[in-house]
């Protein structure tokens, strides 16, 4: 008589639910880890920004790159945003003979919300991606290590000027966006839709308060710091050659855009 030992069951593959939970958990850990890293970097940047030597040449180079270099694209985006917004709102307001509200509506929307959000998004795409790629390339080609071996702090040399450029230039670009947007709205409303210039300007003056402009400027500063921090953090911690730099840049773009919308809501709550 022969006896058969039962064969050992093969280890089962994790189920779809387990895989989903594991994937969600990993994603959550990545998000928390990135937030922690960005906050730590923010403290580092704050500490190194008040220590000598003050690298004004690097700061002006970044102000030029982030701010001056973005003037055309931000101005153009603002102009068309204002034009299309005037066009759309005028149609809606025409339904109940309230075209005179086109100016203030566009003005309030731009100054409080759209100018800061769109300017920050344009800076993210134009300057943030470049920051992340440049720092990532410097990291994987050991240029950051080279700075350290030469007793130069890379946070102070590379990151502080970029973060300060985000802090100072995005609010400026926000104002530019609003101005360009209102110009576009004026030409569409007055030139194209026949609203009188006096009505457009007077109504806008009546509704628009300085606090609306401050709100946009404050949001611009918050978004500017946030975008620059995230792009610098991702680039500075890139690894794995060209592929790693590409992945870091993609993550930086997604995280920056998300941070703009999330912070927009938070700052909005705080200011109202």
């Amino acid at each position, binding site marked *: 008589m022969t006896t058969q030992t039962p064969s050992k069951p093969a280890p089962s593959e994790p189920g779809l639910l387990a895989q989903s939970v594991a994937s969600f958990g990993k994603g959550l850990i990545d998000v928390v880890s990135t937030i922690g890293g960005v906050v730590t970097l923010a403290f580092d940047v704050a500490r190194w920004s008040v220590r000598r030597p003050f690298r004004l040449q690097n700061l002006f180079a970044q102000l030029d790159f982030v701010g001056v270099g973005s003037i055309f694209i931000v101005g153009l985006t603002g102009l068309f945003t204002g034009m299309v917004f005037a066009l759309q709102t005028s149609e809606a307001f025409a339904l109940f003979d309230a075209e005179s509200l086109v100016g203030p509506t566009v003005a309030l929307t731009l100054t409080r919300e759209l100018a800061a959000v769109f300017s920050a998004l344009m800076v993210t795409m134009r300057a943030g991606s470049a920051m992340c790629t440049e720092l990532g*390339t*410097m990291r994987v*080609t*050991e*240029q950051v*290590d*080279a700075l*350290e*071996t*030469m*007793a*130069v*702090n890379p946070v102070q040399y590379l990151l502080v000027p970029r973060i300060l450029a985000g802090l100072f230039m995005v609010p400026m670009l926000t104002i530019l966006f609003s101005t360009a947007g209102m110009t576009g709205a004026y030409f569409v409303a007055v030139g194209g839709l026949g609203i009188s210039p006096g009505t457009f300007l007077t109504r806008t003056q009546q509704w628009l308060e300085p606090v609306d402009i401050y709100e946009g400027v404050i949001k611009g500063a918050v978004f500017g710091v946030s975008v620059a921090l995230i792009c610098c953090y991702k680039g500075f911690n890139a690894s794995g050659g060209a592929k790693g730099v590409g992945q870091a840049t993609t993550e930086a773009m997604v995280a920056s855009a998300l941070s703009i919308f999330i912070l927009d809501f938070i700052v909005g709550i705080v200011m109202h």
Partner: protein
Amino acid sequence: MIDIVDLHKTFGENKVLTGINLSVPAGSTCVILGGSGSGKTVLMKHMIGLLHPDSGKVIIDGEDIVPMGVDDLQRVRNKFGMVFQAAALFDSMTVFENVAFPLREHTRLSEDELYAKVRSKLDLMGLKREVESKFPADLSGGMRKRVGLARAVVLDPKIVLYDEPTTGLDPITTDYVDEMILAAQQGLGVTSVVISHDISSAFNVGDQIAFLSKGVIVAHGTPEELRESQHPAVKVFLETWFGKN
């Protein structure tokens, strides 16, 4: 000058250094030899504080740099120059600006003095005047290494670290770089630590050679002493160059 005491370093599950002990006297050239992935570069990065060990001491001129804060570490790093495997030149700067960078950061030389100093180091490396205005992307691998070497010694450091200085170079340029390392030691009196898996180059420039295998130094001595080593890993490695005895 450099003393490494019982140094351990782990990355995740990977134990890279498992009790390194090494002493490099002042004015000598120590070559750390070992196969790819043996932890040579990790060891070198600990010497200049780019990596923090799990345990152990890294003593530079009598000071343990492991517990040091940023400011003290920066002070100690001023004693070092480092030549990276791929040169690590700043690609947004010209050759001249790359070599002048440490001088601009740590000295108050006038532009004329700065130019003279940079020029003298470029001359030492056999780099002509036309090279000064070129960007790293326009240079050959050998030229990049030489510019990296010029940048590493421009502040006349007491210690120079070379990470695989001859990897990827043709034999003539390899000889040239070896001569540069010897010239830096003999002419400037620097202490040199060279990471390499190039046996020929190691025996050319080293007045002591340490062999790193599986996270520990398994043999350490003069080139002649290393050739006599009976450690299996050393024997196998050297046989690839000297042949079987």
